[in-house]
């Protein structure tokens, strides 16, 4: 074991049925460093962390910890905790029915009993010192998601840990809260805690981390000091493509203009839904890619949901090719050739226990009616065609979708809608939480579909992505459409100023 290292994982192997998730991976964490673990979805980051925290058992390999002569055996999350390894997961792993204080202390206090008074007092002290707006006696379910996340971090921090693992901890935090978290991380770093940081946002990684370990397809690519690894190289290492390759993708995307679009295929007038957005007008031309942009909660999703009939429409008209159509429910929209890829993949998108094939055929089956099922053979043909077309990484068409990685699940849902051959495709945050490689693929696909005559609405929190794919942006603020940007105006500054409050005058 190296000097100063608090954790060393050597030659870790782990296989799942049909997938070799980790092959001969080494990982070293030193005292007082923030170490980013990077890789695309399915690269093995989560598996490596779950091996370290005792959720999965490893097939092969050793884990060494500072202060232990021999390799340690971690068989359960409890073992990991006792060894000083704390974890904050991407999803909240606390109990919503317990109080904040209990969530911070359960499973790690000594003795038989629970001393509520001292527990609450200690919890309040920690909460105040970390500046977390929660009370110790409050039921956890009554806190916002961000606060719950911070409570999880507070728990991990208080555990006097030597190794702290943060698995996508900032997904639900806003900027201020992220800053607070980073301050906390620096504080811990100075106390000699080793921090493993898993995150897709490069900005955050470069802001806080000292070292980067890159994984790809379950194998170790390498460990790098952050100053020796420019971003472009990091991305190319993660993707396993040369630098030139990635730049080519960008050039390719930039060439799209979408000027030739002429006829308005869908048109909406003063459309209003029960989700609380102001009435808005909207149109999309054939073969056009447009986008809704705005801050989180500005009503982007609500707008497209109104178009698709996913929320109850309470006013306004929708015209298709100039003729008025009634869209009350999603099935009405589907019959008019609209497809909608929802924002929340897990809740509204996938049917976890069904196979990839069944998930792909679902929408088309609904359109055709359940009394006219497709033959098995036809289903396999559909599924295989799209698995190949979208390069979906799955063991077979019969694998349950929930065992796929996030990016591949998204592709399956995309395949489901493409199979219905829609005239108008709405993609609501199709690239959230998936790796860069798949992001680029999806962006390219969108442009290809548009060039074939499909109209696409694309929503993303990353303005870069919107600029690359869309030819017209509809800007929203406070649940209202406040502007439209197209042509030469399409740049970061213009978007920012419109979002911030230039208003309609500027945009037109």
């Amino acid at each position, binding site marked *: 074991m190296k000097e100063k290292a608090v954790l060393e994982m050597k030659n870790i192997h782990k296989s799942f049925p049909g997938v070799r998730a980790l092959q001969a991976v080494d990982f070293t964490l030193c005292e007082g460093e923030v170490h980013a673990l990077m890789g695309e979805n399915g690269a093995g980051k989560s598996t490596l962390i779950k091996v370290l925290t005792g959720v999965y058992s490893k097939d092969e390999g050793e884990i060494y910890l500072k202060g232990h002569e021999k390799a340690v055996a971690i068989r359960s999350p409890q073992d990991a905790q006792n060894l000083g390894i704390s974890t904050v997961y991407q999803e909240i792993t606390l*109990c*919503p*029915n317990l109080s904040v204080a209990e969530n911070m202390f359960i499973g790690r206090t000594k003795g038989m009993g629970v001393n509520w008074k001292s527990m609450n007092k200690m919890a309040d002290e920690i909460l105040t010192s970390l500046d977390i707006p929660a009370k110790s006696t409050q039921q956890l379910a009554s806190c916002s998601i961000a606060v719950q996340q911070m409570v999880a971090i507070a728990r991990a921090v208080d555990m006097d840990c030597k190794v702290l693992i943060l698995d996508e901890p900032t997904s639900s935090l806003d900027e201020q809260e992220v800053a607070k978290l980073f301050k906390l991380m620096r504080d811990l770093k100075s106390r000699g805690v080793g921090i493993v940081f898993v995150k897709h946002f490069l900005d955050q990684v470069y802001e806080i981390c000292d070292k980067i370990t890159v994984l790809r397809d379950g194998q170790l690519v390498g460990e790098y000091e952050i100053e020796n690894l420019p971003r472009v190289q990091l991305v190319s290492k993660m993707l396993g493509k040369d630098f030139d390759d990635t730049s080519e993708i960008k050039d390719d995307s930039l060439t799209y203009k979408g000027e030739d679009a002429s006829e308005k295929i869908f048109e909406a007038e003063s459309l209003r839904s029960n989700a609380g957005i102001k009435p808005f007008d909207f149109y999309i031309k054939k073969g056009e890619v447009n986008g809704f942009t705005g801050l989180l909660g500005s009503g982007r999703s609500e707008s497209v949901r109104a178009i698709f009939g996913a929320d109850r429409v309470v006013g306004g008209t929708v015209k298709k090719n100039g003729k008025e159509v009634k869209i009350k429910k999603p099935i009405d929209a589907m019959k008019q050739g609209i497809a909608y890829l929802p924002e929340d993949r897990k809740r509204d998108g996938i049917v976890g226990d069904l196979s990839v094939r069944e998930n792909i055929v679902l929408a088309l089956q609904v359109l055709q009616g359940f009394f006219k099922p497709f033959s098995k053979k036809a289903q396999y043909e559909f599924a295989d065609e799209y698995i190949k077309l979208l390069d979906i990484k799955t063991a077979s068409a019969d694998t349950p979708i929930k065992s796929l990685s996030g990016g591949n699940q998204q592709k399956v849902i995309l395949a489901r809608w493409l199979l219905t051959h829609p005239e108008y495709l709405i993609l609501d945050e199709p690239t959230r939480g998936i790796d860069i490689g798949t992001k680029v693929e999806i962006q390219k696909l969108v442009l290809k579909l548009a060039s074939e005559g499909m109209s696409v609405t694309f929503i993303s929190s990353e303005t870069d992505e919107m600029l690359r794919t869309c030819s017209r942006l509809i800007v929203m603020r406070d649940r209202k459409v406040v502007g439209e940007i197209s042509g030469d105006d399409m740049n970061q500054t213009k978007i920012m100023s419109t979002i911030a409050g230039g208003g309609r005058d500027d945009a037109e």
Partner: protein
Amino acid sequence: MSEKKKTSGAPQMLGAKKQGMTDTNLLLVITIVVFFAMYLFAIVFLGEGFLKTQSFLDMLGTSGGLIITACGMSLVMITGGIDISVGGVVGLVTMCCAVNLDQSGGNIVTSMLIALGIGLAFGLVQGYLVAYLDIQPFIVTLAGMFFARGMTTIIHANPFNVQHEAFTEFRTTTVEIPGAGYVAEKTGKYIPAQVEVGVLVALLIVIILFCFLRWTKTGRNFYAVGGNKQSALMLGINVKRTKFLSHVICSVLAGIGGYIYFMHVGAGSPQNATGMEMDAIASSIIGGTMLSGGVGNIIGTLFGVLSLGTIQKIVGSAGLDDAWWTGITVAAMLCIFLVIQSIVIARKKKALK
């Protein structure tokens, strides 16, 4: 409470008030309020009979076994499980104890040990199957129920009253409650209020379990496991052991409850405690324990059992003595409770947004 929430308007202030209370306590308050409302209703409309301390104590006496069994049920339900074998276990305990006392020459101590042993055996087997082999608790305890009912008949097919002298004396022993009696009008004699021993045992168990769930780590783990199994695991709780323990305790309590029930009826019969598991589930739910797990309170369960008892008495006093009237009233009551619970929880969630 966060700073942000404080600044928001009046409607949220109402929500803020409720926020201070956990789901468990909120449901407990509802249960207790409804119980007292119902009892008051009975006193006003159905006469003085409900005012007498003794009549309340009699109701407790009838419910002693059910209180203990329902407490065990609540425990399992709090961890997100269910145990429908408890009625069968109670039946089996009564029959085994009856046979032991009258036909095998046993005494009070051996019969008690038998009751405990049966409970423990069921708990160990069912707990192992549920927790370590990860089989659905409903299926496991369904099998347990059939097994217990079958065994009861095998041990002795016909109902019979226990003649054992020492036991008869033991079971009819009552404890006087000082100051709760009344002076009979006609004779002017003081008639003390009496309560069965079983009731005291039941109340003791309620208190012990309440403390266990509130102030021990193991007790809090029950809530954590019921709240979110996966999270509990990540928080370092031994989920399997917790589930195992909940089933063991539940079955042991069913054994004890069976003995108390046996002391009350004084007979062994395959018909004993028919449907008791359902009464136990109903009491738990009325008491504010949620089938989805993670929410519940033993004091609530006690009031749940008392509510059931009161309903039966009200139905009886109203002259609707047939069993189905009780069933229908209990059903209506359960519906009302579940609706109230879901409305309150939903409103609370809404107030948060």
